[in-house]
C-alpha cells in the first residue's frame, strides 16, 4: 500500500510535510551533495533583510544540553544581493521555496514584501517577526499591535500566501496568533529559537559575544509543541510546526498537535540527511498504522486520538 504524504495548504500542493526551517540550511545549495531535495516538501530560505548584514561577531553558536544556542544575527546578502546572486540559482533546488524576510521598520517591511512579490521563483512569503538575535531590538511578535501592523502592511502588497513566524516564548501566543490571522496571514510558523544563554564559568562571561541567542533543538520541543497544540485548538489556520524535530516521532507529535507542515532546523545542521530519514520514518509509521494519508493525522490529538478516529 502506498502512503499519501502530500498536503495542500495555502492553495499550494506540497509533496510532503517536511520543510527546511529558515537559517540552518542557508539557501540550500551546499546541502545538495547530502540531501535529495526532490524528497523535501519545501525550503524556507535564510531570512533576507533590506541591507546586507555580516552578522554578529563570534562566537555565534554554543551548544547546551539538548540544544544549540545561536546568535548568527541574520547574516545575509541583503535583498539586492539576494535578487542578483541567489534567486537565479534557486531553480537548482527541486522543491518549493518559501522566501523569508525581516524588516526593522514598516518601510523596510514594505520594500521587502514588494521585492519578494516580484520574484516568481518564490510562491510564498514568510514574515520573520521573531528573530531573537538582533541586538537591542524587541521582537515584533512580542506585541499584538506590531504584529498586526506588519501583517496588514504585507497583506496589502502581495497576493502570495503570507506565513507569519511567531516566537514561542511569549505569555500568550494565541493572542498574537489571532492578531496575525485577523490581519490577513494565511498561515503561522510556530516557533523560532527561544531566548537563552550560557555563561562560561571559567571566564565568568556569557559564551556568546551577543550574550544571548536563540535556543533550538530537542530541549525546546515540548515547549513549542504545547504552543502549537494550544493555538490549533482555538484557531483554524495552517501551522508550520518548528522546534526540536529530530526524528519521526517528534515530527508526528507536531502533526498530531495540529501542524500541517513540519519544519526542521537544528536537525539539518547536525545531519543534512535527517529530513529524508524523518520522512521515511513517518511513512513507515503510517503504513504500520494503516493510515492512508498523512493529512488525516493532523490535529488528531484534539479529536480523541486513534481510539476515536
Amino acid at each position, binding site marked *: 500500500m502506498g502512503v499519501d504524504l502530500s498536503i495542500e495548504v495555502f492553495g499550494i500542493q506540497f509533496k510532503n510535510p517536511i520543510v527546511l526551517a529558515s537559517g540552518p540550511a542557508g539557501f540550500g545549495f551546499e546541502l545538495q551533495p547530502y540531501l535529495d531535495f526532490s524528497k523535501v516538501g519545501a525550503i524556507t530560505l535564510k531570512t533576507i533583510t533590506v541591507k546586507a548584514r*555580516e*552578522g554578529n561577531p563570534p562566537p555565534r553558536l554554543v551548544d547546551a544540553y539538548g*540544544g*544549540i544556542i545561536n546568535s548568527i544575527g541574520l547574516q545575509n546578502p541583503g535583498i539586492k544581493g539576494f535578487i542578483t546572486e541567489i534567486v537565479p540559482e534557486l531553480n537548482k533546488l527541486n522543491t518549493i521555496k518559501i522566501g523569508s524576510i525581516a524588516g526593522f521598520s514598516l518601510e523596510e517591511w514594505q520594500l521587502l514584501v514588494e521585492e519578494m512579490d516580484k520574484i516568481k521563483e518564490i510562491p510564498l512569503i514568510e514574515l520573520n517577526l521573531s528573530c531573537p538575535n538582533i541586538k537591542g531590538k524587541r521582537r515584533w511578535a512580542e506585541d499584538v499591535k506590531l504584529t498586526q501592523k506588519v501583517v496588514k502592511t504585507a497583506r496589502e502588497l502581495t497576493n502570495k500566501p503570507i506565513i507569519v513566524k511567531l516566537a514561542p516564548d511569549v505569555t500568550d501566543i494565541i493572542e498574537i496568533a489571532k492578531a496575525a490571522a485577523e490581519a490577513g496571514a494565511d498561515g503561522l510558523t510556530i516557533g523560532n529559537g527561544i531566548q537563552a544563554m550560557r555563561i562560561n564559568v571559567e571566564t565568568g562571561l556569557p559564551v556568546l559575544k551577543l550574550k544571548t541567542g536563540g535556543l533550538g533543538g530537542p530541549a525546546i520541543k515540548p515547549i513549542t509543541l504545547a504552543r502549537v497544540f494550544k493555538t490549533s485548538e482555538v484557531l483554524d489556520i495552517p501551522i508550520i510546526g518548528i522546534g526540536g524535530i529530530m526524528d519521526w516521532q517528534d515530527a508526528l507529535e507536531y502533526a498530531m498537535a495540529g501542524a500541517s507542515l513540519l519544519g526542521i532546523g537544528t536537525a539539518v545542521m547536525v*545531519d543534512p*540527511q535527517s529530513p529524508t530519514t524523518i520522512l521515511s520514518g513517518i511513512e513507515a509509521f503510517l503504513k504500520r498504522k494503516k493510515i492512508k494519508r498523512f493529512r488525516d493525522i493532523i490535529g488528531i490529538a484534539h479529536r480523541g486520538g486513534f481510539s476515536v478516529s
Partner: protein
Amino acid sequence: MIEAELKKKRISGDYGFFIFKLQEKIENPDAGQFVMLKAPDEPILAKPFSIYSYKNRELVLFIKRVGRLTGRIFSSPIGEIFYVRGPHGNPYISSIDLTKRYILVGGGSGISPLNFFSELHPELTYTKLYGFKEAHIRKLFNENEQKHLVIEEESGHTVVDALNELISEEVGIIACGPIPMLKNLPKNAYVSLEAVMGCGVGTCKSCALKTIEGVKLVCKDGPLFRKEEITWEWI
C-alpha cells in the same frame, strides 16, 4: 551519518589517539579536511575533527579533551557507536602554492591535519614541528615521530621558537594550533583555523571569520587562510 565504532584508544593526560571503524567509506579525504563527529546522544551537535589518518574505513583522530563531546569520547567504552560525516572543508593543497615545500607547525591537537599532510604529500613536506607543553605526550608517539616533538617543559622553547631557527625564503609554513601561537607566526604563513561550527558545510553561518575581503566561513572557505587576510581582532 555514518556509524563509527570506537575500536581503540591511547590516552595520555588530556590528549589521545582514537581509532574508529566506519560502516561506510568517506570520499577520499585529503589533509586539512575534517569530519563532523557526533556522540550517540549528548551533546547533540556534531563537532569538527581534522583527519589524522584514514585508510580502509579506519579513521584516526588525535583529540584534546576540552569539553562535553571530547570528554565523552575519552570516557567511552570500546565498542561505543559514534556518527561521522565528511570529509568537509578544503584540502590544504587547494589553497597553497604547490611549488614550495612547507614546514608544518602544529600546536596541541593542531598537529592532526599536519600528520595527514605529511603522509599524503611527503614531496611538499619540508619538516614537521609538533609543539606540546608536557613531556608525557612523548609516549603517544612512535620512534620516528619523537624528533618532531618540541616540548616546552623540556627545552623551554615553544614551537614558534623552533620554527624561527628554520625559516627561509624558499620554504613555506602551514600552521595549525591555538590562536596565540598562530598570531606569533611570520606574515607569510598559512594558518589552519578553528571556529565553532554548526553544520560544517557552509549553510548555518556559525563559523564566520572576518577577512580583508569581508566575512568568510571557516568550513566552506577554509580551514586554511593566509595569515595576512585575517582580521584577528574579530576572533
